[in-house]
């Protein structure tokens, strides 16, 4: 067999198991981490309720999706959930603004220490957690409909004649496309619009920005609205790609935090990079390179072992190991943190 087929096989293998899922997972983490980082940049605390806000938004979206499906409204090959998404976003925004009004606002007026906010967000986390389970229950919910695949592994094999297949799911495609659109929108907003500039100024130097006549309440409100929208979209995309379960969303909090911090907390660009760093490192460190090397290495060098750096059991720990390493080498995160 010619050498080039072997190389192609190896590349497709890599794309199928690492690049494609990594891009989708990374995008979901990045959107989540963007929300965390915006809150941190403006309100100056780590929002532990983030995972459960995601679950709340997704839950509303699912309920609306079911409603639409029952009256027969759909998007053809695309999932119906995309139609329901705006309502989910609105609900998440409402929830965020309400919690801000009832909980966080008081502590802002008291000029409380950041850790007080963190504790308060913990309280909000517990409550939203209870509410979500209360409404939709604890079960696994799948709400994906429409065409499942852009390319199927088997079709790809027939098309190219390669040993290895490449599959791209619709949900993965949608995730990446939406993530790119949202990120562009966000940066445009932060760089070009008045409110965006106000947000950046506020994040950079609160006192100075107040002196120059920026309305802090408006900045905080805008931040919550944007963060809520990002949060809800991240949750829905994750749910579309995998499945929705309240418990899963609570667990997502940890990799999302890791992503935000590795990138440099408070830094939107950092959150995006952090999301992909966490997603790809989780996969690459635990991937056994046996087959991959098998395609590339000459006959007599075929590996016996799995060539796995860490077993998948430590997948979860990988994001934290990276986090600790980044803190050791570059304590501010990849991009220097705490400026929008």
């Amino acid at each position, binding site marked *: 067999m010619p050498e080039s087929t072997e190389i192609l096989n190896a590349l497709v293998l890599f794309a199928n198991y690492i690049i494609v899922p990594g891009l989708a997972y990374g995008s979901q983490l990045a959107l989540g981490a963007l929300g965390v980082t915006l809150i941190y940049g403006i309100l100056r605390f780590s929002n532990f309720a983030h995972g459960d806000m995601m679950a709340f938004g997704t839950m509303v979206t699912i309920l609306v999706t079911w409603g639409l499906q029952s009256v027969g409204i759909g998007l053809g090959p695309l999932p119906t959930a995309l139609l329901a998404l705006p309502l989910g976003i609105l609900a998440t925004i409402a929830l965020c603004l309400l919690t801000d009004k009832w*909980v966080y606002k008081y502590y802002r007026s008291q000029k409380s220490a950041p850790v007080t906010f963190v504790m308060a967000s913990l309280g909000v986390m*517990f409550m939203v957690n209870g509410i979500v*389970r209360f409404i939709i229950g604890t079960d696994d919910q799948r709400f994906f409909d429409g065409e499942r695949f852009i390319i199927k592994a088997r079709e790809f094999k027939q098309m190219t004649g390669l040993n290895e297949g490449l599959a791209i799911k619709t949900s993965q495609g949608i995730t990446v496309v939406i993530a790119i659109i949202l990120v562009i929108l966000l940066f445009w907003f932060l760089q070009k619009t008045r409110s965006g500039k106000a947000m950046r100024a506020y994040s950079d130097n609160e006192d100075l920005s107040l002196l120059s006549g920026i309305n802090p309440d408006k900045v905080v409100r805008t931040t919550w609205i944007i963060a809520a929208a990002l949060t809800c979209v991240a949750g829905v995309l994750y749910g579309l790609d995998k499945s929705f379960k309240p418990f899963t969303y609570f667990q997502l909090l*940890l990799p999302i*935090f890791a992503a935000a911090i590795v990138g440099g907390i408070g830094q939107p660009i950092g959150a995006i990079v952090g999301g992909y760093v966490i997603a790809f490192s989780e996969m690459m460190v635990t991937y056994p390179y046996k087959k991959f090397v098998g395609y590339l290495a000459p006959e007599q060098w075929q590996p016996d072992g799995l060539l796995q750096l860490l077993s998948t059991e430590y997948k979860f720990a990988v994001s934290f190991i990276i986090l600790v390493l980044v*803190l050791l080498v570059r304590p501010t995160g990849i991009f220097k943190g705490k400026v929008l």
Partner: protein
Amino acid sequence: MSNAIRATLAFAVMFGLLAMVGFFQSWALALTILNLCIISAVMALGVNIQWGYAGLFNIGIMGFAALGGAAAMLVSMPPVGNAWEAGGMNILYSALMFIGTIVAAVLVHKKLPDNGWRTFLMIIVLVTGYFLTRYFYEPMVSAIESTDAAKTGYLGGLGLPIVLSWPVGGLFAAGAAWVIGKVALGLRSDYLAIATLGISEIVVAMLKNEDWLTRGVKNVNGLPRPVPYELDLQQSEWFAAWVEKFYAADLAALEGAAREAAMRTHMIEASGLFVKLCYTGLFATVLLIVLTLCVLALNSPWGRMIRAIRDNEVSAEAMGKNVTGRHLQIFILGSAVCGIAGAMLTTLDGQLTPTSYIPLRFTFLIWVMVIVGGSGNNLGAILGGFLIWFMWVEAEPAGVWLMSVLTTWLPEGNSVKAHLVDSAQHMRLFTMGLVLLLVMRFAPRGIIPERSGR
């Protein structure tokens, strides 16, 4: 209201609540809750040392508690001879390789000048060490784990009395805290939080997956107890005599079979209570020792220095105090206390269950205790530990009761009613959140606040 009165009142209410459980539910339940309350209080004291005294934000309590739990198992379980034989010399070799790698890396770091070569050499040493260690480690692991996997499959422990494990658990936690502190203290304050969160996740991941050491998710059951077993008590004559004396009035009226049956019931009940009281005694002793040390430390010159650092780091540093050094001390001490509590908890459970270490229960709940009780105040932390654990356990029956009361006006068979009653268990989280928010809003310094301005 002065603090002393406030504290007395708060504890009176707390013990009143426990007494109510005793009267309305059962004394066994009240004591079970009390024992866990004490352990929670010790853990909350540990966090209070870090947060209340020095403003260190540790969200890795779970990891320190888990290390304490592992210590309880490693100290108390009998060693598994077959597994040691199966592992053979590879155990020694891989340990040597691991230690050698660390020592070599540290030497390179210390002895060579700081330039690109040093980093390069470090990486070489670490990578070589990793593969050398794995060379001996992997056959060792598979040999040990396959010796009677269903029952043992791990090395076992030292077979010593389990009470010894409490200080050992503290030492384990202190060691981990030293490493974390060296890495993260002195950087921006929230990085300590992040580092502790990360390390605690890694510690638990290791407990779950290093089966040769901890049996992983298969759990280690039946840790030896520091107190007698109920079944032994029920067989023993001295205990029977004791019960007979205690319930004499009750038994006097009965005869024959009825008397025997009543006696049996009393024996079962009394043996349970006796064992729980033994635990209570042990745990309360630890709590008192830790509390005394805390109070002494807080009122010593050292304690004043620590609080001075907390209140104004910059000026303390200007006065020539070694802020990072003191922080490291505090962090290690607080973590050690958490480790001790973790070992006590595993002792009470009688088993090591790595899957039980989840941040919700072991990190966030403890934080709620400290904040609600009153950070910076030892008694406050203890009260928080008691109160919050009490609510954590009692929220479930209370939730069910509340739901059914709230829905009595709905007709039988109404689906809304059924759904509400069905979801009662989830009210536990909701209640915890609500309590936390209410306390933070209306009593922001906790139920028993720190005394200030002395």
